[in-house]
């Protein structure tokens, strides 16, 4: 089984978000970048397929040279080969087209991407990749098994779960649940050393166009101070929720 895991390079979840250039660019100053958490759950599941079923695992990122440390980390976790498409994409559509272009030649059985990146939250890359490759697609995937040519997946729906089956090739939008938090792998020294030797191929983009663009950013308006209610005066809280906030 050949697996491709799509890796987005995103600010760490604890990052404070600021903008520069008249609020047109994300301010990377002092920001720690990591593997997109939704992708990391997928990558770890891919490692499971590697260990249990002898899969080979390639990773792909669409981005500039600054994303390479993130790719090296994914290699240290255990991926076999990395591919970086050397372009700064403007939207998920452009990313998806570049990934699909590479994936077409790679004949992958399974492509795993996060359900969304935690920076732009576009939520479109896995679905569009599937559409472009005419592969099957299952989103918000929380469990995945493959037997022969058939995948069985569990998808999270609003208020429950659905079990689905589909033939390979398959693209999934992954998230927490594919593996548990405590199953995520922290690269060890041997992994880090080996990652340095693994191939990281830089390929030039095919020139796909974006269909949308983030023109400007805004931060949420500052919040008013909290109204503290005495713990022995809960009637006051109920009064505020009923008459002021009008939510009960």
């Amino acid at each position, binding site marked *: 089984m050949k697996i491709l895991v799509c890796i987005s390079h995103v600010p760490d979840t604890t990052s404070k978000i600021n903008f520069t250039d008249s609020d047109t660019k994300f301010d990377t100053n002092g920001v720690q970048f990591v593997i997109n958490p939704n992708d990391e759950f997928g990558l770890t599941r891919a490692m499971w397929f590697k260990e249990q079923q002898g899969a080979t695992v390639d990773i792909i990122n669409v981005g500039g040279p600054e994303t390479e440390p993130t790719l090296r980390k994914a290699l240290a976790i255990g991926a076999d080969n990395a591919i970086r498409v050397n372009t700064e994409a403007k939207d998920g559509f452009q990313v998806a087209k570049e990934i699909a272009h590479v994936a077409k030649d790679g004949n992958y059985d399974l492509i795993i991407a996060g359900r969304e990146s935690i920076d732009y939250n576009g939520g479109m890359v896995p679905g569009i990749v599937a559409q472009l490759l005419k592969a099957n697609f299952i*989103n918000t995937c929380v469990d995945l098994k493959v037997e022969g040519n058939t995948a069985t997946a569990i998808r999270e729906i609003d*208020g429950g779960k659905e079990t689905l089956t589909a033939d390979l090739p398959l693209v999934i939008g992954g998230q927490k649940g594919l593996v548990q938090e405590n199953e995520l792998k922290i690269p060890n020294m041997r992994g880090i050393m080996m990652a340095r030797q693994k191939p990281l191929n830089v390929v030039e983009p095919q020139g796909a166009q974006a269909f949308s663009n983030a023109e400007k950013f805004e931060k949420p308006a500052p919040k008013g101070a909290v109204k503290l209610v005495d713990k022995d005066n809960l009637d006051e809280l109920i009064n505020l929720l009923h008459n002021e906030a009008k*939510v009960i």
Partner: protein
Amino acid sequence: MSVLVYTESENGKYKKAALEAASYAKGVADKMGTEVTAISFNMSSHDDLKTYGVSKVLNVANEKLSKFNAEAYADAIAQAAKKEATKVVILGQTANDKYLAPLLAGLLEAGYASNAVALPESTSPFQVKRTAFSNKAFNITSISTDIKIVGVSKNAYGLKENPTELTAEEFSPELSGEDFSVNVNAVDKATDKVTIADAEIVVSGGRGLKGPENWELVENLAEVLGAATACSKPVSDMGWRPHSEHVGQTGKPVASNLYIAIGISGAIQHLAGVSASKTKVVINNDPEAPFFKAADYGIVGDAFEVVPKLTEKLKEFKANNS
């Protein structure tokens, strides 16, 4: 030229998210000087659509589509968009909407803006405000394709009544075998529980509750309020609660009217995930907990003492106000 809205239904009823999407579509149509067409699957009564500004509904009556199927639904919606010469397609942001939207974008070669929170600031060029960085910021996104797809966040634009005359048409898209290559074998959905996605009120517990055996506190309060229950990330990581209840940046987002956080300190990732909620209440014995900076109302006190009292008082309040 109409604005097309996909109106999702469940058990013969339009979902609230669908009616919010219809309200939003009407707002977009008014800006563009056109009308709203809805597409629905296997629905017999469309009265709700009439209330929220829909002028025409294309109903697909097809046994094979009685269960949600992302590929087939996306194909049908794409065909409806072409038939109507639609320039803008609107949908909500339920799990199903988020599943089919990128497939639809691929079929229509349309730019897609998810998580929209307001009407487009302009329709030519098409620019819309959406959340980004997991609710820590907004961005104004422009879409340059001929057809645009917008996913409207829950509880952001809201429901806007706009009574209209509605005509209903049957619509029979041509579906191929490939549309049905992903099979749904089983659905496991609790029907007696309010889901985090649909809930108006969410009651959430954190590490301050000390252990899964104390979750009665959260559950009792939620029951009185008709609320969904949720939890913080450490609580789901420790296995006290299923991770489907984990709300926050890597869990589920919450956009309820009221969010009550019990024993949750308020890590930045958690606050981002719940920031779209309209009113936030925090109950915590640590007055320095970061959640107090993000909340509207706060009680400094021991959850084990405050929550049962609050539950009792709300019971009385509900009894007197119903």
